[in-house]
């Protein structure tokens, strides 16, 4: 039985399938869902937790190391054979009997009166320096704790301690009626909010067998691509800051601001919170959108010429923070990180929303900071192209009002839904029971990239860390939840 579980999962990985989610339920099931990237077909497997144990996949599938540690921390189920069961989400402050997603929920734990730091894994030996950074930072940065083992300037090992921002998002979503979920899902992470909202809307619609009409789908594509432009502008602004290229940094922030002001005008929110709901998505005037894109291009084109013509900047990015294709594959990378390492992974290619849009998959070479920078440059322009095409369609379609739809209030069932967020494959694994949420699992785009970041660090110098980190641009919030 347990061998079946391992064999099935390995077979999917070997077939080149994409792992959508690996998570547990309170009643003792561990479930894995895979997707065939050719046709989008999904397959789910489950194994039972017996005597509080389930067979670990980590040795065969290193990409699930964190998923299994998370199950261990939040459910109390032990992945048998896992090589590293140090706490990931838990801290020494958590009462030992407290498992927030376990069979016996405790709503208000009595935190222990100790420091929250988990012990770090470091390299021992003569001449090695241990450098700790965070969890609070000397700038506007989300909270995370990084422990470097250094030999002089060189990084030997990086131990990443996240989940400083762990709020318990999956648990508060449980038991909520369908109508209450949107504001919470919208705020799982500001960087990928439209992607999260769209996932939730699609899950409800799939379970209700509601088929969105073309206008609704078009509005969602516009919102998703607008979010990608916003996020890529942010990341493209931060990478030059990592090497002190202030002119490019400040100008990119100005372009981002132009885009944000436009989003506020078009959709009512500068970060697009609360713009997608089951059966609904915020609409925009196509001419105003086209005008905004024109304004953006006026600033974007000279900026692109500036950064592409700066040799010093390119030299600084080349060969730094390399992700090898083999590691990208092994760790289950996707999004910009995978594409910059030459791997064509973009779930828009199988997504119903993009059925007749054919977004180009922009690939990089070398898997270094420069490749990630360049892929974002190309993807931003591709998103602008998709936005222009969508706006034209909206205009030609002689816009009729959105079909009104009321969510049936006794919906039940499970749906595994995904979108390509600016940070990669964003998956929600949702179970509804009679109109209420029974289980809500979020596996966001950056989750599998954090261990990969640690993997890419040795061999680089410590001064390169901010640059490499910015080029991955991983969000903490949707990882920590």
């Amino acid at each position, binding site marked *: 039985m347990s061998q079946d579980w391992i064999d099935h999962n390995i077979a999917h990985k070997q077939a080149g399938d994409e792992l959508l989610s690996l998570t547990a339920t309170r009643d003792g099931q561990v479930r894995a869902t895979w997707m065939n990237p050719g046709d989008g077909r999904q397959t789910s497997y489950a194994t039972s937790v017996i005597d509080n144990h389930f067979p670990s996949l980590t040795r065969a599938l290193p990409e699930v190391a964190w998923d299994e540690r998370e199950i261990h921390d939040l459910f109390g189920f032990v992945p048998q054979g896992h090589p590293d069961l140090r706490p990931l989400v838990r*801290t020494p*402050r958590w009462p030992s009997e407290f498992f*927030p997603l376990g069979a016996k929920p*405790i*709503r*208000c*734990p009595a*935190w222990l009166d100790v*420091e*929250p730091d988990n012990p770090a894994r470091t390299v021992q030996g003569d001449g090695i320096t241990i450098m700790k950074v965070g*969890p*609070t930072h*000397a*700038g*506007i*940065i*989300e*909270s995370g704790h990084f422990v470097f083992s250094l030999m002089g300037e060189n990084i030997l090992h990086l131990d990443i301690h996240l*989940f*400083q*921002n*762990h*709020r*318990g*998002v999956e*648990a*508060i979503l449980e038991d909520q009626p369908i109508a209450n979920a949107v*504001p*919470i899902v919208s*705020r*799982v*992470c*500001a*960087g990928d*909010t439209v992607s999260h909202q769209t996932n939730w809307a699609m899950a409800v619609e799939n379970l209700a067998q509601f088929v969105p009409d073309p206008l609704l789908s078009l509005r969602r594509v516009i919102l998703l691509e607008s979010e990608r432009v916003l996020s890529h502008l*942010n990341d493209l602004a931060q990478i030059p800051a990592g090497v002190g290229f202030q002119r490019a940094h*400040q*100008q990119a*922030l*100005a372009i*981002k*601001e132009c885009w*944000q002001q436009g989003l*506020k005008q078009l959709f009512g929110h*500068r*970060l697009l*919170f609360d713009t997608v709901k089951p059966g609904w998505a915020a609409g925009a005037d196509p001419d105003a959108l086209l005008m905004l894109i024109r304004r953006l291009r006026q600033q974007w084109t000279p900026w692109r010429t500036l950064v592409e013509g700066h040799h010093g900047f390119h030299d600084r990015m080349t060969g730094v923070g390399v992700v090898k294709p083999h590691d990208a594959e092994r760790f289950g990378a996707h999004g910009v990180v995978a594409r910059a390492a030459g791997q064509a992974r973009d779930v828009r290619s199988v997504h119903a929303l993009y059925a007749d849009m054919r977004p180009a998959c922009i690939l990089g070479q070398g898997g270094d900071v420069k490749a990630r920078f360049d892929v974002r440059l190309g993807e931003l322009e591709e998103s602008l192209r998709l936005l222009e095409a969508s706006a034209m369609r909206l205009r030609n379609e002689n816009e009729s009002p959105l079909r009104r739809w009321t969510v049936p209030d006794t919906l039940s069932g499970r749906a595994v839904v995904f979108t390509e967020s600016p940070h990669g494959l964003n998956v929600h694994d949702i179970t509804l029971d009679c109109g209420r949420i029974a289980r809500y699992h979020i596996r966001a785009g950056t989750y599998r990239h954090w261990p990969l970041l640690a993997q890419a660090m040795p061999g680089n110098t410590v001064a390169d860390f901010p640059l490499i980190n910015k080029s991955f641009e991983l*969000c*903490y*919030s949707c990882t920590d939840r």
Partner: protein
Amino acid sequence: MPHRKHGRRVLQIRHVDAGSCNGCEQELTACTGPAYDWQHLGLDLVASPRHADALLVTGPMSDTMARPLNHVYSAIPQPKIVIAFGDCAAGCGVFQHAYGVRGGLDTADLTIPGCPPEPVQAIKALRTWMTTLTDPETEPKDSGRR
């Protein structure tokens, strides 16, 4: 209105994220960018708590960040000011009742509402509040200590 030695004309701010969704951070970054350029209004973010007059907190205060936040607060010299930035820090955000959070700050000298506060509103709230503080030059030398 409380006396404050610093803060009337310039405010040096140290930021700590205590469980934010990164929306508040994005808008804070915008405040420092070329469009709003809050430095020319006497507002700035500083890297060290030792250089700060104020602690600005975002997020609903995750339990894990509560102690590190306190360490930063202790490192800021007196007199010091606490700013709750955004609905989560103010205690009225959507994560208020999650098991991992304390539901915002217990007390704050200034609360800036919004999810997230937009740069214009945030800067306006800070500037308006700064003008209500006592000007140290018109006060006896040792006033304003808490």
